[in-house]
């Protein structure tokens, strides 16, 4: 199971007796899963016996795909989702503009072919892009580096 800790969304857990404070951070500003994540965390922690459960959100530092754990990356790949590479490091100055579709070397999570192509920079969710493998002919999703 891919967990909130695997994804780097879980930023802290503070336990004290039957009270627990869990801190999470959103991936993207408009992530529609945040409410469900909060509800599920509260429910799961109550079931686990905590009388007082508080879920806090932090916005800073902004979430980065670099926080996805090694185990999380393996689980993503096993589920057919290509895990992100290293997040881009900004030099000083304006944010660079990318005028051609990215040509990153993203391996196909189905067959391992290292030479795949990007179909679209946005996929079923904001955090993933859509790709296809010319060898096994399968489309797949890639978690975008941010």
């Amino acid at each position, binding site marked *: 199971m891919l967990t909130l800790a695997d994804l780097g969304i879980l930023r802290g857990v503070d336990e004290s007796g039957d009270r627990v404070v869990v801190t999470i951070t959103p991936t993207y*500003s408009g*992530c529609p899963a*945040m409410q469900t994540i909060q509800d599920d965390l509260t429910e799961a922690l109550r079931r686990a016996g905590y009388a007082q459960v*508080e879920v806090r959100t932090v916005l*800073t*530092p902004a979430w980065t795909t670099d926080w996805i754990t090694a185990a999380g990356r393996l689980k993503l790949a096993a589920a057919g989702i290509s895990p992100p590479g290293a997040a881009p490091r900004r030099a000083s100055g304006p944010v660079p503009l990318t005028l051609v*579709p990215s040509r990153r070397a993203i391996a196909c999570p189905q067959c391992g072919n290292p030479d795949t192509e990007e179909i679209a*920079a946005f996929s079923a969710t904001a955090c993933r892009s859509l790709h296809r493998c010319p060898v096994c002919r399968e489309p797949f999703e890639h978690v975008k580096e941010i």
Partner: protein
Amino acid sequence: MSFDAAYEALTDHDDDARWAYGTGFADPLAGVDTAVPQDVDRGDLSAYCVALGDDALIMSHRLQQWVTRAPELEDELALANIALDLLGQARLLLTRAAEVEDAGRDEDALAYLRDATGFRNVRLVERADADFAHLVARLLVFSAWRLALLDRLTTSTDPVLAAIAAKGVKEVTYHRDYAAQWVVRLGDGTDLSHDRMQAAVDAVTPLVGELFVPDRVELRLAPAAVAVDPSTVRSEFDAVWAQVLQAATLQPLAAVAEESAPGGTGRDGVHTPALTEILAELQGVARSLPGSVW
């Protein structure tokens, strides 16, 4: 499972209010330290967050109107994702504005219960797009401008604004690349796509000047590094715009005169009739059925 049972399964939760339109969403800043720094005027900070939030909210709504109308499914997903990012930014900013204002309003009251004259968005975001070329030209202008603003706001002395901006920079970078790549593809495409892309660039140009005119709130907040004076990002915007137009074999900005915003700008509450039309759609349910959930 019958249809009725499926509907029950979807809605029969104690937290089902989140399915409602205009009510019941959790405060997106819940648990965030929202203290206002000393020496910052609360009214000004609130007004500034409203302006940046309104830009995102109205642009998001226009993008949502493209869903089911985009040329390809992949572009529909892209536009929906961009709209969702902007809606998320709008929610954070309007929530921040309401908290700082401390007058009993929340994000919903700001989004659904203000009239057009209360909105502070720039007029660029209001326009309905005549075609896909108009959309990508407008999205390029909007995201190149907003990215430059947000990038500077990451060092705002208001920590909440800085945090919202830091997330926004990552998102709007993708939005700008998406729009720029389409402008290049259409501009440097066939004769027909080139001409239509040029017409779209010409049509958006009159709306560009307003983006760089600072209003009173921005001028008061900029010296303390709470806000950004938008006139300071003009050269960065111009460089991006010129780079994209050159790659797209399109004529640059100077070919068409920019409007001088007679009678005030969107930041002053002066809007086009298009905003009234958007608000009728955006606010209709929330206003006719106040507080209702389904």
